[in-house]
């Protein structure tokens, strides 16, 4: 274990997740565009990763034995940037430069920009393959780092996800843990209406993955799932996390339109008030 000096209590994680949600709203309000819904739905999962699970070192972002986090659903970039800033990778002030000309905080993640961003993403469906490659390299080098990849439930409609699912099982990548942000919505509507991909858990099981299903807003369940995943040998794990898109902001929760629409000034104020 390196990086964090002390393990965060569940209460502290909850506070941190609220701070991260506030960052997301403030950044998007300032930027005037971007994706709140899927950033907020995964906020608890990503908070748990960055403040309890990942072996990472903000003073040495490219340390070879670090755990890797791949944000495959790259449109949740504000969430990643906030987690990195809160974790000390770069000054929090910089968050307000999101999506602006000259900023390191591009609209979708760009590798190394800022340090801690492990791979460029934004085109959906590609991150799981990258995570596989990282996990294969770890096995080849006899390193015991772990690789985490966050996928969207709409994203897994991409064929490449299933190519990568086969690869991870074929190469027995038990150092890989995917998390599915199962919020039930994509851009054009509910998943079941746009492209009904059910049954999802059975699909991953059939692809020879270890599967778990949790409440993606319950830190006890999130942390337990990550711990259990570490113990599974010979196959990759996917944690299917039931979440609420827009979680934490009343007027964004389960609202399809807040997938890719930034809050207005008034909505920003209101959301920050709810999140205080």
């Amino acid at each position, binding site marked *: 274990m390196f990086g964090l000096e002390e393990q965060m209590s569940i209460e502290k994680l909850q506070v941190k997740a609220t701070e991260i949600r506030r960052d997301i709203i403030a950044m998007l309000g300032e930027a005037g565009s971007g994706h709140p819904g899927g950033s907020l739905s995964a906020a608890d999962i990503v908070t748990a990763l960055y403040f309890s699970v990942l072996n990472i070192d903000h003073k040495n972002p490219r340390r070879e034995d670090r755990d890797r986090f791949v944000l495959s659903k790259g449109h949740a970039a504000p969430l990643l940037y906030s987690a990195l800033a809160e974790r000390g990778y770069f000054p929090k002030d910089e968050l307000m430069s999101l999506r602006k000309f000259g900023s390191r905080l591009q609209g979708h993640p760009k*590798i190394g920009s800022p340090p801690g961003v492990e791979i*460029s993403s934004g*085109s959906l469906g*590609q991150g799981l393959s990258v995570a*596989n490659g990282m996990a294969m*390299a770890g096995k*080849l080098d006899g390193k015991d780092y772990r690789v985490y990849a966050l996928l969207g439930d709409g994203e897994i409609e991409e064929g490449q996800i299933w*190519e990568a699912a086969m*690869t991870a099982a074929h190469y027995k990548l038990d150092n890989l843990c995917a998390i599915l942000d199962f919020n039930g919505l994509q851009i054009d509507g509910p998943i079941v209406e746009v492209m009904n991909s059910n049954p999802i858990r059975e699909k991953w099981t059939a692809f020879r993955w270890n599967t778990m299903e949790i409440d993606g807003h319950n830190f006890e369940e999130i942390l337990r799932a990550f711990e259990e995943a570490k113990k599974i040998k010979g196959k990759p794990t996917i944690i299917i996390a039931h979440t609420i898109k827009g979680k934490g902001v009343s007027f964004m929760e389960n609202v399809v339109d807040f997938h890719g629409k930034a809050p207005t000034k008034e909505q920003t104020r209101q959301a920050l008030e709810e999140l205080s």
Partner: protein
Amino acid sequence: MTEMIATRDAYGKTLVRLGEIDKDVVVLDADLSKSTKTHDFAKKFPERFFQMGISEQDMMGTAAGLATCGKIPFASTFAIFASGRAWEQIRNTICYSNLNVKIVATHAGISVGADGSSHQCIEDISLMRTIANMTVIVPCDAVETGKAVMTAAAMKGPVYIRLGRAKVPIILNEDEDFEIGKGKVLIDGSDATIIACGIMVEKALEAAQKLRVRGGTNCRVINISTIKPIDEQLIIKAARETRAIVTAEEHMSKGGLGSAVAEVIVENEPVPMRMIAIKDRFGESGDPGELFREFGLTEDDIIKAVEEVVKK
């Protein structure tokens, strides 16, 4: 008779050599390892070979992930599946991240022959050279292939190397140096310049020889194996000194070597130019000789083009 070796065979042998020298080299293939010749590496270094199955997009992403961890991945399949099926993975995951992935694609061009159009990639130079950060190399023979592969492994950043299926004659000497971004004058001349890549270099040399023997036209012949970054200085010099240019490639005229050369000439030293290339159509089944005649890629086609530009 000069020795005939397919560039993909040279690739297979070079990979094994590379694998011995550099433990970070890993190889990925999408169920074509016997044809792309990565099979030799797989036998020698099974733990560093990743069979990806028929999933080219996943292969490119996996190669990207390996590269982020310091590996030097060589990803191989046929040119159409590498550059076509996985184009966006190459663009967004590999090249935008400027990762150290080497894509070595075989079975480019109509010299694939009998398999027909679905397997004859005539668009890859164009597709690959429009992506920022990408280096594009088209070796003309087995010797240059070996050097291109070794050099690509030694440089940082994404590289696309275009290889063929067919056996091709050895043109270059083993002791000549190879530098990415540098073209080479193979024959000097002052009346016109033929700029070629890949399998067409040999035809360019033959065309130049015939023109010389017939008397009258002394052609300069340039082998441009790096299509990107292209050797602008050498091209501008040739345009300035010979005042006429013909390009020759086994690829569509749109976006290929001819286009790349034209981009340089138009901005720097406009001179009459002709492109020997495939004109806006798909390939067909047949033997390579028949196909090269049908598609206008013979030395006689080059000669005709030279005569036209010289007259202008």
